[in-house]
């Protein structure tokens, strides 16, 4: 007779209250995304990768409602690994301000400035930022994510800007491709998050890959790397217009967008 042995962590995660699924963006993801998904944001410089990442974070940490006003946040906690130092908290605050103001406008109420500040400050408390400078630090952080998740059960989003930041440091020690390096990091993340319900989202630079890929090949790549959604951002044909190519295991779509102070605006 064989016994099934179970670690304490597995036991805990089984007992944990049923996790909520979250929707980080109504347009990009038509339904709630599975709370173990991996989202990759890839694109050339100045196409809004970091803005989109900030927007996901803002949505995640904002409350669902505040005093009867529907703000439509996920009311959850997030971890941001800032590898390049490009993410500004003031940008996340700015994005949240515009979301809150829009929410109040829909309800036909003029929000007092103190209320907006209060909501922003309270939401920012849900966000932990880990800054690192080199590959060593990043690896150490990734290997200890489990401890972070254990210490706060409300964490539902892990954001990394940018996953390829230290590629050249790693390459100095042994020759490996960008894809191989990114997949390696992703494997560490997946091993650390396997017992938790966390969505992982990361940005990465455009590699020297051909822009055109057949659908079958995309699916193949997605499955091989463990990425569930790939958001390919690129400049559109018109000035100030951009294009987002969304690939998931069962769907492909293209959405145009513009970037402004209030973040990315989808054009349907």
């Amino acid at each position, binding site marked *: 007779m064989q016994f099934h042995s179970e670690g304490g962590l597995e036991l805990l995660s089984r007992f944990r209250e049923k996790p909520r699924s979250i929707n980080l963006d109504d347009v990009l993801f038509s339904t709630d995304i599975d709370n173990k998904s991996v989202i990759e944001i890839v694109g050339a*410089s*100045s196409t809004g990768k*970091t*803005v989109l990442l*900030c927007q996901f974070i803002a949505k995640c940490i904002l409350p669902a409602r505040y005093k009867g006003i529907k703000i439509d946040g996920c009311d959850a906690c997030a971890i*941001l*690994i*800032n590898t*390049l*130092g*490009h*993410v*500004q*908290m*003031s*940008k*996340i*605050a*700015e994005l949240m301000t515009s979301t809150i103001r829009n929410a109040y406008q829909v309800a036909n109420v003029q929000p007092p400035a103190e209320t907006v500040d209060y909501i922003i*400050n309270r939401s*920012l*408390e*849900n*966000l*932990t*930022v*880990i*800054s*690192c*400078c*080199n*590959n*060593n*630090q*990043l*690896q*150490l*952080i990734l*290997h*200890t994510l489990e401890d972070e998740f254990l210490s706060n059960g409300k964490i539902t989003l892990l954001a990394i800007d940018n996953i390829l930041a230290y590629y*050249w*440091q790693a390459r*100095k*020690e042994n020759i490996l491709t960008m894809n191989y390096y990114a997949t390696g990091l992703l494997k*560490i993340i997946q091993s650390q998050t396997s017992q938790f319900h966390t969505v992982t989202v990361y940005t990465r*630079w455009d590699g*020297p890959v051909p822009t055109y890929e057949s659908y079958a090949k995309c699916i193949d790549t997605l499955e091989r790397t463990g990425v569930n959604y790939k958001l390919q951002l690129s400049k559109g044909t018109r000035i100030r217009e951009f294009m987002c190519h969304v690939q998931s295991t069962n769907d492909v779509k293209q959405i145009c967008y513009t970037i402004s*102070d209030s973040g990315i605006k989808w054009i349907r």
Partner: protein
Amino acid sequence: MAKLNADVHPSLLETVTENLRRRNVVTIVDFVSTDPIKLTNITGLSHTDVLQVKQYILKKFGGIKKNATQLLAIERNVIPISVTCLDELLRGGLYPGQLCELCGPSASGKTQLCFTIAANVASRSDGIVWYFDTKKDFCRLRYEGIMRARNFEQKIIEDALRSTKIYQTRSSHELIKALRQLVTRNAQQSDNETTYELEDLAEVCRFLTMEYQAVVITVNIITRWNSPGQTDSTDIIPALGKYWARIPATRLMITRLHGEIRKINVWKDLRLIENSSCTVTINDIGVTS
């Protein structure tokens, strides 16, 4: 990658690390990612000791963890450049921890702009400026002239000169070494390949911005070099190649309009509107709006 030895933690004696090495646990990352029970067996240390070493490594080599509200408070301590229209363009000035690059063609006034920013920051009571001079053209009179033109008191000028520290470097290797000494990190052996050297430079800049919340300003030229994949041959790009192009968080571009009038454009930034611009006057007394 940092290897395990007694410098990392006193209990990692040579016999212990030798045993670890035989089991392929060579670096600190290997140590942290290996099951503690396995480590206990290999090293002969007690379980608690292993966990302690692990915590110690994380504290010493891990990243800096902060709550976002804390970071926002730091970011809001904006350092004004004291050039009115440029401060408006930058929404108040430079924020602590910003890595900003000033780009432009030759003779567009990049150095003078850098001097002006340095002079205005150094003349604040709490401002300390480190100026790394790679072209050997830092001129004290020119620097002092900018402050004199702003009618600062003699005492303020003297203090500002005292809090401006000039470091002349003759090679990129020396520059990286000097920057490393600034953050008292032990200089490692360096490679001569350009990308690796740029990576070293980027790392130490990141360290200054993240650990010390310093503003780091780099001055760079632009090129019209054609690279494969570049669609428009007249496209201008910052020098130092694709890798460096992605490193600074903010990039400003300064171009000559006519005479002493220059235009400063936002080339790249997360918050500012791309291509928004202001015009400034540039001459012996620095940059004025």
